[in-house]
């Protein structure tokens, strides 16, 4: 259903609209082209259009692993960083959902004293600079012996993600109304069944969007991870930073950069599919 309408939309575009689409796509995808070339290069000096020497030409001659060989080797620590990033991202997403769902429900449905003040404070982490939050947390966590631990990093990641998630889910809850849950209870469902069989499926598009967003934010957080990881825990963003901190982007840094974008791209594709087929494909949402 959704797919058919996309197709018919594409065929209805005027030449100008097509041109415009190509320009936008160019802006989004453009930066990836030099990155990909760079990741395959051995030497690429300005103002050459293409690398003077390719990685594959040098592959047999060097003692050290080069470019992709290096990126995919244990020396780069890329696997460790990827695992950390994905693991932390998943944990943050799940915990963030568990905290935000009940909070959003109350914010959407109840009136209580100090509600607007609460909503204001909820946005504070988005206003206060990340560096300030990072330093403050670091000082606290050193004392609590949480610095350099997964637990500490996960807590730090929850700070900027919860406000977004709560806001997003509050809007979704407002659209849901209480009839469905009350109806389920009257029909004999337990609280847990109501959540699992009625609330979550109906909130699904919002939850998927919120979870996706949280995961992407978490996998991209550099500063907080850098402060609180204390070099003991590396993630893709901190690994990337250590490779490009010198101010140059060599083949292995380019390769790492490309890998850093992978979780997001994969997740986007999965969730696009999921939302379309599971929820909207069944005539949901009207």
């Amino acid at each position, binding site marked *: 259903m959704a797919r058919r309408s996309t197709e018919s939309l594409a065929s209805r575009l005027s030449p100008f609209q097509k041109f415009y689409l190509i320009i936008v796509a160019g802006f989004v995808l453009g930066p990836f082209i030099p990155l990909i070339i760079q990741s395959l290069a051995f030497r690429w000096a300005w103002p050459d259009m293409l690398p003077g020497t390719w990685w594959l030409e040098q592959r047999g001659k060097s003692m050290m692993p080069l470019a992709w060989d290096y990126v995919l080797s244990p020396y780069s620590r890329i696997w460790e960083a990827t695992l950390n990033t994905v693991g932390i991202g998943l944990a943050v997403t799940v915990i963030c959902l568990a905290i935000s769902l009940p909070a959003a429900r109350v914010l959407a449905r109840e009136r209580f004293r100090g509600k607007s003040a609460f909503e204001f404070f909820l946005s504070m982490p988005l206003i206060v600079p990340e560096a300030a939050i990072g330093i403050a947390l670091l000082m606290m966590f050193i004392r609590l012996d949480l610095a350099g631990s997964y637990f500490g990093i996960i807590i730090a990641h929850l700070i900027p993600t919860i406000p977004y998630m709560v806001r997003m889910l509050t809007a979704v809850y407002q659209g849901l109304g209480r009839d*469905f849950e009350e109806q*389920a209870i009257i*029909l*004999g469902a337990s609280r847990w069944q109501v959540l699992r069989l*009625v609330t979550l*499926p*109906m909130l699904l598009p919002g939850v998927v969007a919120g979870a996706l967003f949280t995961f992407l934010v978490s996998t991209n957080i550099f500063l907080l991870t850098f402060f609180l990881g204390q070099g003991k825990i590396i993630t893709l963003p901190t690994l990337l930073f250590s490779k490009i901190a010198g101010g140059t982007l060599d083949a292995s840094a380019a390769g790492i950069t490309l890998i850093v974008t992978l979780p997001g791209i994969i997740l986007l594709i999965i969730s696009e599919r999921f939302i379309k087929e599971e929820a909207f494909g*069944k005539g949901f949402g*009207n």
Partner: protein
Amino acid sequence: MTQVQLRSISKRFGGFTAIENIDLDIRSGELVALLGPSGCGKTTTLRMIAGLENPTTGEIHFDDRDVSDLRVQDRNVGMVFQRYALFPHMTVEKNIAFGLSVRGTPRSEISDRLDEIIDVVQLGPFRQRFPAQLSGGQMQRVAIARTLITKPSVLMMDEPLANLDTKLRGEMRRFIRTLQQRLGITTIFVTHDQVEAMELADRIAVIFNGHLAQFGPPEDLYRQPVSVDVADFMGASNIFPGTMTGTDAVKTGFGTLSVVAQPGMADGSRVHAMLRNEGIDIHPANVEGGDDMVAGRIAARDFFGATVNYVVECGAERIIVNEQSRRLLDVGMEVRLDIPAERVWLMAG
């Protein structure tokens, strides 16, 4: 078969009183309509019976059991919401089976009862559809089936017909009435349409502003409303202020009517007299009559086919008379109205 009793139920939301001291005694197997204008507390009453809302004071009994502390899930009630609340992500079948599957009913039993109820509500061809692919009447039947499949001891419906067009509404009324009689299930339904209430209900509870104004069979509410408000809400058109002269006559703007003495209506008290417009006989002025005749002139005529309405000017008042259209009288004609004492109903105030 369950008897439902509300005993001095009140409900306050903060400082606002939504329900004030309501007593209601609903017999088992009875179909009761809660009738009243918007915001009078009908939904709130249903929600308290279902357990979705706790009364501020008072008790609710099912048979002889106080259910005030019983969870919603344990009250075994059914409720059809005004907007049906069908789960949009489930098929018709899944929606209807919901109440059984959450209780862990064995699959084979679910499928048997599903077949049975789907047959009753005639939804066979729509089993695999999603709610968004159904018409209003079909959605309504799904909502009713979903509630009935759990065999509730009390069935509640919040304005079940409000979202349907006129023709469908009539059909669904008959459907609900037949179903209710067949299952003998105690049923409470909310409406703000007095015709619907009279057609469907064994007894009607009229609620104004959180107060129970009157509770009784449709005929009583129609013929003997306790107040002008109730009379008005039940669709009465001929209500005239007057003063009692003795206990068996009332002086009105168009003359003195003889009435049947009613308790509490003493000589000299101010009252309202209600004349049912189908209870008045109209005659051309030359016809001789008894003491109950009131003289007037036809000011307007509304022809409805089988029946006809005359607006008759009598002194300072206008009386509406409804009769069968076997003959037609002309506008401007001098007439006499025969208003027998037993067709006049007095209300205080």
